[in-house]
């Protein structure tokens, strides 16, 4: 489903990614862990189509297409979803308006009819329940004045609605208290299964305890240094990145 080969990228003159190789098959959950500044968020952004990074070498193939040639929205239409580390505020735009526009934009490009107001409302109410969010959320401006936890829950709510084929969760656990972490983690778990692949980008193991990944990769200094199964995450938690690096 997703093949990253020898991916190099830089910002300005600074190289950030220095040859990433990663293969994600349909239905797999991969965790990418690593210390701050290792390039984790850069990788997420490049996969979602952010244009401030320059890819200097390598390729990314998604469902047999050159992912890097697609605009961010074209990636969304094909089922790529990024949950932001720092979800952006859109003043004056109600959350429900964004959610509906997003769902219908994606549906239209997948050849499905747009959801009517009533149908959409039923769907969004069901998902709100899953995320234990109040309906008042719908009528607040997008991310404006949301707490850290509310923002992340809102991201996963969007993921629930958009039903992506490839979901990239960038530091979704940051800024979450224990309860919010559980709700978000379980929200993601509900989406697990079938052909849906998930890439979890995180600094800590705590989210991985809830969403048990099939594979764990350690990203450091722009390269994947180590790959393994869930036990690698547990080892990391115990020994720290320095310990692993030294080993």
């Amino acid at each position, binding site marked *: 489903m997703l093949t990253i080969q020898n991916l190099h990228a830089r910002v300005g003159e600074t190289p950030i990614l220095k040859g990433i190789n990663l293969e994600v098959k349909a239905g797999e959950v991969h965790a990418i862990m690593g210390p701050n500044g290792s390039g984790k968020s850069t990788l997420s952004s490049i996969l979602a189509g952010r244009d401030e990074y320059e890819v200097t070498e390598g390729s990314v193939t998604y469902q047999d297409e050159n992912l890097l040639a697609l605009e961010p929205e074209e990636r*969304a239409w094909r089922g790529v979803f990024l949950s932001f580390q720092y979800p952006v505020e*859109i003043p004056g*735009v109600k959350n429900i*308006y964004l959610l509906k526009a997003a769902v219908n934009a994606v549906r239209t490009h997948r050849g499905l009819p747009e959801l009517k107001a009533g149908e959409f409302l039923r769907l969004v109410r069901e998902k709100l329940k899953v995320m234990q969010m109040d309906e008042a959320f719908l009528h607040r401006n997008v991310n404006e004045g949301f707490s850290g936890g509310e923002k992340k829950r809102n991201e996963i709510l969007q993921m629930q609605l958009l039903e992506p084929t490839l979901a990239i969760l960038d530091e979704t656990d940051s800024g979450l208290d224990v309860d919010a972490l559980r709700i978000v983690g379980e929200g993601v778990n509900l989406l697990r299964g079938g052909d849906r692949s998930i890439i979890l980008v995180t600094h800590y193991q705590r989210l991985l305890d809830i969403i048990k990944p099939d594979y764990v990769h350690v990203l450091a200094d722009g390269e994947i240094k180590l790959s393994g199964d869930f036990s690698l995450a547990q080892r990391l938690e115990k020994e720290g990145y320095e310990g692993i690096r030294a080993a």
Partner: protein
Amino acid sequence: MRTDQDLDQLVDQEYKYGFVTDIDSDTFPPGLDESVIRAISAKKNEPEWLLEWRLKAYQIWLTMTPPNWAHVAYPPIDFQSISYFSAPRKKGDGPQSLDEVDPELIEVYNKLGIPLEEQMMLAGVAVDAVFDSVSVVTTFKDKLLEAGVVFCPLSEAVHSHPELVKAHLGTIIPQQDNYYAALNSAVFSDGSFVYIPKGVRCPMELSTYFRINQQNTGQFERTLIIAEEGSYVSYLEGCTAPQRDENQLHAAVVELVAMADAEIKYSTVQNWFAGDDNGKGGIYNFVTKRGECRGDRSKISWTQLETGSAITWKYPSCILKGADSIGEFYSVAVAGKKQQADTGTKMIHIGPRTRSTIISKGISTNRGQNAYRGLVKILPGATDARNFTQCDSLLIGDQCGAHTFPYVEVQEPSAQLEHEATTSKVSDDQLFYLRTRGMTEEDALNMVVNGFCKDVFQKLPMEFAVEAEALLGITLEGAVG
């Protein structure tokens, strides 16, 4: 990273409504002198008093000079190169229904996406369509008459309700008010006349679509709305114009009078041709709009979406004379390409406990220059008067400009004034976020901008708000930053 070249490229869009309709018209040769004014007056069979009024205005205008204080720049206008009268030729006595209207005219409206039939059916809106200078079709007149409401071309009102016209014309904006108001008073072509009798709530939104269609023809609309005691009216004005090469002058005058407990809501969507990338060929929109809250507890509310014109010079204002009267100004002004907008309002507080609210949203893209210019004046005796002003500017790209010129004159110590101002940029983060949710770059920009404008759009009547959002979309098409 997105570059400014990209921006410029994206902003560059052909004017969608750029077509010229060839309607057999009756146009004066260019030039202005007393004989032209007499000829205009004669064409309309005007009474002697109105001709005298026009001639007086002309004499005043001759002694005046064009204003130069606005934050706009343009070459001097040659007033002798403008034609001062243009009317679609009428067959017979003029159309009584849509069937009698020139089909080509109807086609123009259809091209603009505002078919009259549909509008009337769906929205129950009575449309007094001004095509060039003469009102061609007035609908729903009977239903309005039933309620006692008069809604007709001003030229008709001069004959049907001479006492009302005579009593109010020029009382809010006198001939000598300013250069363009004086010119309008001398040569005004036509416009709408609205009279809402005492205690009547106008049964429908009154709507006029203006469209400048004659090449090189100045447009001098004049509108007069009178709301008697305890009455209510909502008036909508919308404009589009075809593409052309020469600058066109538009100097309209709108006067509103609200008696005790009356309310006038005046909404405008203005989308005149903005000119090419260098501002060439766009409309010069020099408009004087003013309302007087004459009676106690009266209310006048101006809401505008200004997306077009090469130059906009427009300050819809309220004179708050009656005690406890309310003035409101809600504005979204967009300046892209090389557009220059200098717009705002004046709130003149005279009566005690008068209140005013100003919400101005300026959007600048490409090389557009957007200025808010406002005056809040509290005169002695306007005890406990209050004003709230909020001026927000949104910049798209980095070659555009936003300017704010708020003037405040307070001569009443018990008055309370608040002023808030912000300037922000549409961020790449916002656009990227929305694009990862499946929205195109343009849709993403529209969403951000519409969010910015929400406070104003929600003041527009429902059908108009939808149209306003669509127009804003057309205006910003490609203006992604």
